[in-house]
């Protein structure tokens, strides 16, 4: 190709690149409370709450790291609505294993309300041993 065509092609390319850089959607910085910055830098984590903290009330029931069943509104499927509770709980209780199948002697019950919890306890063969809120508690395997 002639030098002129080459120059036009290259100039056209750089112009397009500049236009594309300038047109980029504005994903600007969002305002962040100063407390969060400081909490992160200092390592105190002030202002942050671990999503798994909602399960902290159950911690006292688990002395060893023996696997525990995690009982939800419905039997486990990997992408069911509300499955995030199970994954969050597992992340919180590591290295203790939370089994989504009703195979373990102890169950952590995390249902939407007590009616569903009662039904799930019946279906899976557990009895309620401790209550930690509406539809939440600890179950013990009976069959």
């Amino acid at each position: 190709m002639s030098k002129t065509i080459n120059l036009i092609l290259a100039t056209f390319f750089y112009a397009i690149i500049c236009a594309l850089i300038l047109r980029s959607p504005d994903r600007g910085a969002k305002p962040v409370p100063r407390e969060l910055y400081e909490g992160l830098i200092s390592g105190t984590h002030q202002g942050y709450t671990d999503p798994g903290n909602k399960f902290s009330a159950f911690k006292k029931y688990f002395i060893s790291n023996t696997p525990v069943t995690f009982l939800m509104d419905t039997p486990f499927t990997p992408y069911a609505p509300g499955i995030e509770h199970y994954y969050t709980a597992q992340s919180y209780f590591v290295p203790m294993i939370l089994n989504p199948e009703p195979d373990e002697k102890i169950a952590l019950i995390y249902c939407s309300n007590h009616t569903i919890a009662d039904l799930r306890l019946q279906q899976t063969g557990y009895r309620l041993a401790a209550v930690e809120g509406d539809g939440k508690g600890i179950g013990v395997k009976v069959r």
Partner: protein
Amino acid sequence: MILAAPVGLGTCSTALFWAYCAASSQGKWLSVIFIYLLGAYALFRLITAMSKTQQKPIFARMEPAALKALLNTRNFFHVSISAAALIVLGFVLYHFIRYFISTSCLEIYGGWDARFIWNLKAKFFFRSPAEWTGMFRNELAFSHPDYPLLLPGAVAWGWNWAGKEILIWPALIAFIFMICTGLFILWHLLASTNPWSAFLACSYFWVAGAYRFWGPTQYADIPLCFFITASGGMLLAAVRARENPLFLLSGLLAGMAAWTKNEGLFFLAWIVLIFFAALAVNAVSRPDKKKAAIFFTAGLSIPLLNILCLKTFYAKGGDYLGSGRTAAEYFSLTFKSADKTKAILEGFQTYMTKINDWNGLWVLFFAALLIAGFAGWKILLNKHGWILAAAVILTNFGYFLVLHTTPHEIHWQMETALTRLLLHSGGLALIFVFEVFSSFWPETELRP
């Protein structure tokens, strides 16, 4: 320097993995001590090398020559456009860092995969070294026990060192990989094109919507993108400069890509193929080819050993490898489903042309490919640019084939994964685009 932090993180992860394999409950301190010793040795080597002033630099031919030439030139026009591009880069970098910090602060626990796959595994390493193999149990199938462990290992190593699960560390790792990928693109283009191309390409990378979105999520896709970009770029640099240590680095980086994500294993296979093709077409002597092959294989062998150990002893099952499906089933799934093939092709077209994600990167890549095929053969053949194009095309072709065999519904699979898969080879595509188009700019004293 650009490779130091990512390769260092990969090394920490490797040390941690082997320390836990060898002495699970003692693995924590063992891996920290090993890295301290390795660091001390590297520092000693660096100091002794610096004291030998007459020594020839190892990567002399891969220095950012365009930058050096720019400092010495008297061409006002070239200095002006380079300065303008540098200002754009500075502006983009400033806003990128602000964006990254604010997003990370507000979403410090990361995205779904970060919370429930990568950092979950890191917690097993950190909280109970004696029970770290718990992460491979069947009950945790949702966290994919067969996934490689570079990222969890790097996160856990930092936590072990600090003695607590510091929240900033996984975000810092994500930041390091995003910055280093951009800087690698900058360095590579400074060594092979002109300064303004390098500055604009780096800016382009940091403003591309897909990279900005996935960067702070702490997913393993950006680290994989770094290792793929660096391995491919390093292979090209090695072939151009004929420096054996660069082959070693390319192999090491390809191995680390495989130690980051299963997709990296595919890349490893492709880059080995490209490496041998590059040796075959290159006019070098047989002993030199042999030497290059030894260096390349040595580089990738250590990370590959990690994967072999992981897949042989700890995580034997997986969605693909070890899933129990036969080769005949895979063949049938891949080649006998026209509807699926059509859906995947449409998916690639849809996701590659999303302007807010890619800023037109893939359109430019195919345009560069077309133009290079017609008029830019010099860059493709004489300057070995085909290595980049082949790495990008083969990587995505591999994903195209694998998508046929997914156990999930194809549209859902593409919706959740295709943009992230495209991230992996985007860095190499960007380098290729700039190498091709900048070659049409009239020869200047700034081009190496």
